[in-house]
């Protein structure tokens, strides 16, 4: 504690000197003190995604983990209001009781960390804005946040939004807060839109490995009115680790092993799934291709594995998240082939890529590709030797200038998670 700022707070601190406020008011009081003392704090939940972003240089750490619990769940109104650090698992369990779900599909980042499930908290999830495989159909995390309460950098309690979907009252701060990595407010309460769960899903797997053909299929799938809700491409790379991992993870009765494949998901009740598959078979000329179908018992775990980055389980290397317009996808596959482990999600828009240790130059190259394609790249997990010479986030000068202004409007003394995203923010 000697190196830390002396805080005159009654709020509980553990042996690691982490503050654990019990409620919104205590968070507010604590941040007010930090503000007075000009003393920045790292904001954490349960640390499940703490490895994402830059390391913050803060004198203090504030854990919001005690702000947990469902405040109000109205299944018929399609919303759930929760305290900020309610575990995602608890929310999903509750929604399951009413046959509802978080439609954006959560990614379990625990697998790339240590191979174990750890979905973390809703505030952590919102702070990253990383939606799962259903993103291209239902929107991102930010599209499912109806409102929030939180503490700004001056220690003031602020709120925005509400519980209704149609709301244009004032600036839409819920969007701004989502994906801000705790640099604008310390969240205390979040209202999420929930949606009915689909009865079942089937997954059609097409065994294919030619980049142009793959993206031709992605194009047809995203342009189909049959509303597919997931589309991924998983290559069979010439890399022993990858192949072993792939074979262990994607082990299903109706899935061939040892080959690359494109898989897409169709959801609904049984009759509409059958109808959609029939239509898509025609639209994609499937009878001319080698394909198989995963039934509901295989389809559900299949997409969990895709979503949870299990292909990069326990990796010690860098994991990158690269998003581009799908029209550039086939070129990117050609670049990546046999160079890096990767797979494609979001019907050709999202590439998860693993870059080996000591290869920061490769990350730079990939960033350039992303930029030239009108996309972006985020280094989600860094290898132990990563020296942060290459920033983990991409930002241009003008957006950085605006981001700094926005940051100051919430947090004039840069108390909350300073530097977590960019230097000076």
């Amino acid at each position: 504690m000697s190196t830390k700022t002396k805080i005159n707070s009654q709020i509980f601190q553990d042996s690691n000197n982490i503050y654990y406020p019990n409620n919104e008011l205590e968070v507010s009081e604590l941040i007010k003190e930090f503000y007075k003392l000009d003393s920045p704090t790292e904001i954490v939940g349960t640390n499940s995604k703490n490895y994402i972003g830059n390391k913050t240089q803060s004198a203090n750490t504030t854990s919001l983990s005690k702000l947990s619990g469902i405040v109000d769940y109205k299944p018929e109104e399609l919303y759930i209001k929760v305290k900020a650090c309610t575990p995602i698992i608890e929310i999903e369990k509750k929604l399951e009781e009413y046959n509802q779900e978080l439609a954006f599909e959560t990614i379990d980042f625990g697998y790339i960390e240590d191979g174990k499930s750890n979905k973390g908290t809703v505030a952590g999830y919102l702070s990253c804005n990383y939606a799962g495989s259903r993103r291209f159909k239902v929107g991102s995390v930010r599209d499912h946040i109806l409102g929030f309460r939180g503490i700004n950098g001056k220690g003031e309690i602020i709120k925005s939004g509400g519980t209704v979907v149609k709301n244009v009252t004032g600036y839409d701060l819920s969007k701004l807060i989502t994906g801000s990595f705790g640099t604008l407010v310390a969240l205390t309460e979040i209202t999420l839109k929930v949606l009915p769960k689909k009865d079942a899903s089937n997954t059609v797997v097409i065994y294919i490995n030619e980049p142009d053909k793959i993206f031709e299929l992605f194009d047809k799938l995203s342009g189909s009115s049959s509303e597919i809700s997931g589309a991924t491409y998983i290559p069979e790379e010439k890399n022993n680790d990858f192949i072993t991992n792939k074979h262990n993870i994607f082990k299903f009765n109706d899935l061939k092993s040892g080959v690359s494949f494109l898989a897409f998901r169709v959801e609904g009740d049984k009759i509409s799934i059958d109808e959609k598959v029939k239509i898509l078979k025609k639209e994609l000329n499937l009878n001319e291709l080698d394909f198989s179908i995963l039934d509901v018992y295989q389809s559900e775990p299949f997409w969990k594995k895709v979503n949870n980055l299990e292909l990069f389980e326990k990796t010690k290397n860098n994991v990158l998240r690269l998003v581009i317009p799908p029209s550039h996808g086939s070129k990117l596959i050609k670049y990546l082939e046999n160079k890096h482990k990767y797979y494609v999600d979001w019907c050709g828009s999202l590439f998860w890529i693993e870059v080996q240790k000591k290869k920061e130059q490769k990350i730079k190259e990939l960033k350039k590709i992303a930029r030239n394609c009108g996309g972006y790249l985020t280094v989600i997990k860094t290898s132990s030797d990563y020296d942060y010479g290459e920033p983990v986030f991409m930002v241009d000068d003008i957006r950085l200038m605006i981001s700094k202004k926005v940051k100051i409007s919430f947090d004039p003394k840069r108390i909350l998670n300073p530097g977590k995203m960019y230097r000076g923010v």
Partner: protein
Amino acid sequence: MSQIVLPKIDKSILIRKDEIVKKLSKIINCDNILSEADEVRPYETDALSVYTQTPLAVVLPENTQEVSEILKYCYKENIKVVPRGAGTGLSGGALPLQDAILLGLGKFNKIIEIDYENKCVVTQPGVTNLGITHAVEHKGYYYAPDPSSQLACSIGGNVAENSGGVHSLKYGTTTNNILGAEMVMMDGTICRFGSKSLDQEGYDLMGLICGSEGLLGVLTEVTVKILKKPQVVKAALIGFPTIKEGGDAASEIISKGIVPAGMEIMDKALIEATDNFSKAGYPRDAELLLIVELDGTESEVNELIKKVETICKKNNCSSLKFSKNEKERLSFWAGRKAAFPACGAMAPDYYCMDGSIPRGKLAEALLEIKKLSKKYNLPVANCFHAGDGNLHPLIMFDGNDKEQLKKTEEFGTEILKTCVKLGGVITGEHGVGVEKRELMCEMFNNTDIQQQLSIKKSLDEKNLLNPGKVYPILRKCAEQGRVHVHKNKDKFPDLPRF
């Protein structure tokens, strides 16, 4: 014209009018600057025509660089700027100010690129909402948000207001359907947010801009998502003997896991008014009418129809009809779409309100509005986007009677306060503008509002861009506003309003 408090006029700007016009004519083609009284008159108001103001001058730039130069000059000279799209907004967001330049984006009317591969359209902001759909519909695509004024409203205005529409329950509002934008800040800086990629890294500045009512920047380009048209679309017309039963049925449809493409409610007053007006064949004996639209594949829609039928029968519906073909489906909508003009035919004036409430409170809200109608002795007809709890009560009155106008304004304010009391908000899709500005304190406390103003200040530190809109000027909740239509002479009488 009703009175409304606007920012204090800077007289030093007014006396410099000639000099300012001269300077502007060096930045853009002088034919694109309007400064004579007759020239600027059409720009004195938007679709909230109860308020009018003459702008200092109207400038109509043709490209981003010109917008940037104009704003740079205005920033340097401390001249206020009010941006304007098609001027179809219903909350006075584009109301001019006497000491401000009105920056019209009407000449930004071209679609820049149609990109089917990436399922998006890059467009200038002055292109109409429907214009985007028209450009891609031959390939089976469309742009999903469909505000009722889509024939005339511009996509730039849609972004500024975060416009919704009948289908927003399933397909979202503007903010959920845009991928990228180019914007010019008040100091002339040109910035780009997003692209053709999904999401953006870093602060969601596009999410902040969308719905910011022209207070943070001027849009010069928008990239929107396009979707493939659904295979089958069918509608149901369902009558109920009581408000409660109809409201409960609408609520149950959602809670049973059905997400209709659109779900609308009309009360008895509106059923009669629209049926008289458009001969839509609505069940006139019903107290409440529900229109449910379902889309998807053939079997999906048929399955949903069965579920909707069961729920409505359980809630004692008095009539139930499903569209058998596209012609019949459109006829179901004909009356609903004629709701506003039908009210215009019943009274010299009407005020259109716009609030949102939780879906489950629909019946409660309708009954409360009915009580208020008796209290104020003014007829009201109600339509709701029931799927997302967005209500549009239409209060009928005679504007020539000052007492009635005052009563109408009080009535409207009470309706919006009721929305907040029921857990809703003061505007679902029309925006705050000047209209509901003073009601912001019904929803937000001073700290909340100061936080929002702090964002405004960070991006427009001199408060030159569209000042006097959205945030309260008065330190109390005023009782004025709403959409006033006199003798059915809406600013855009031909536009359907629903």
